[in-house]
């Protein structure tokens, strides 16, 4: 079974994605991640205005089966949180790259993006 990977996004080894528009990075988890987690039932609220470093825990997500941390793919300030997915985390299962986005980070250091994978590379990384 193939997992959906979207061109133009950056990907982490921990299965987060970041979409870059200007200096804003929208963060979510990949189709692979939502499928591995299974039914997502809880997403810990994130504080707007938080300054976070790449690789630090952004929030914790829980499915019926298990809890798992979501890490910030880039450093910066959290400027927006998707309150819809905090209320209804199963949106992430249904639309991980769209309505299931989690937070927006004001990117501090665009060089960090070079450390992340492009679509093709990530696709190979998670090929089963």
């Amino acid at each position, binding site marked *: 079974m193939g997992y959906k990977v979207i061109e133009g996004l950056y990907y982490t080894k921990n299965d987060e994605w970041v979409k870059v528009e200007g200096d804003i990075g929208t963060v979510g988890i990949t189709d692979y991640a939502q499928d591995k987690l*299974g039914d997502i039932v809880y997403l810990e609220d994130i504080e707007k205005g938080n300054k976070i470093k790449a690789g630090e825990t952004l929030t914790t997500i829980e499915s019926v089966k298990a809890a798992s941390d979501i890490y910030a793919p880039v450093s910066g300030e959290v400027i927006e949180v998707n309150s819809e997915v905090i209320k209804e985390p199963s949106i992430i299962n249904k639309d991980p790259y769209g309505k299931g986005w989690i937070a927006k980070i004001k990117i501090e250091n665009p060089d960090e993006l070079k450390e992340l994978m492009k679509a093709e590379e990530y696709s190979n990384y998670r090929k089963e």
Partner: protein
Amino acid sequence: MEELKRTPLYEEHKKLGAKMVPFGGWEMPIQYTSIIEEHLNVRSNVGVFDVSHMGEIELHGKDALSFADYLVTNSVKKMKNGRVKYTPMCYPDGGEVDDLFVYKIKDDFVLLVVNASNYEKDLDWILQHKEGFDVDVQGKSFDYGEIAVQGPKAEAFLKDYFEGEIPLTELKYFHSEYGTLFGKKVLISRTGYTGEDGFEVYSDSKDIVYLWQTVLDKGKPFHIMPAGLGARDTLRFEVAYWLYGDEIDETTNPFEAGQGFAVKLKKEKFIGKEALAKIKEEGIKRKLVGLEVPHGGIPRHGMKVLKNGQEVGYITSGNFCPSLNKICAMAYVPVEYSEAGTDVEVEIRNRKANAKVVNLPFLEPRAGKK
């Protein structure tokens, strides 16, 4: 690591696209599509589970029933043929070896159905205690296949396909009978682990693939779906059925777990009787309770329960309840904090989450309410 065992339905699970996980030494399907979808389908229609991993132990001989009665805490000696009882099986100190179903097939044949993860341990335990009883103990886990057909539509679905001593519609809760289902010889009981009406079906292991396929095929008009261990766990959790290893183990006793109904101290003798009588006389110190946890995540087994900042108990299991749309947990807390409405805290990932004690079960089972 020990190699995982596979049920005869392993290939069927693969064909259905199940995610397989290790459970109690077996490689089992945790889900086919979605745990929540499978859960809700069992509550509203009917689901089929592979439970062939469960352990079957047969007791044969003139003392089969009195031996079973000695092993377990519930009273099984006077059961009529076909009757099934749920019971803990205890150590001399009152801790639990396992919880199981006792099927009285006839006077000289009793079937014990035990947890998969405890099968070998139970078999050893039972063999160690048979001295003085005229009984032949046979571990038969690999000879039996078992499926559970559970949900409000289970009876309407299976009634026309079963032929036995009495029609399925007349088979009472916690009763069993032999017959044929889709032409295969089965032992069927109106029992389950979901809180819904439904049946557990035992067959020769070589017939279970045919039964599984036929149930899935003929069950289509009743919206049948296969359901995995994930749904089995959330279903049993909502109705607060114990899971060995979570709510009960060798360190818990039946009274604190809320299983006092299945401990018959009037029985002449059984393993654990003296210890359990003492526990009952002195009164329990802690109790299994329900918790509602509105924020902070899902409490999982082993997490701490706090009162006024002090650790007072632990979570046995916690989950999202798909039928109630909220997060709940079961926990052992001191009796003084066990009243419904008591505020406590749960430590989830080094943060404190508020929780409120509620009565169990979270959801009233519909099984047996016919």
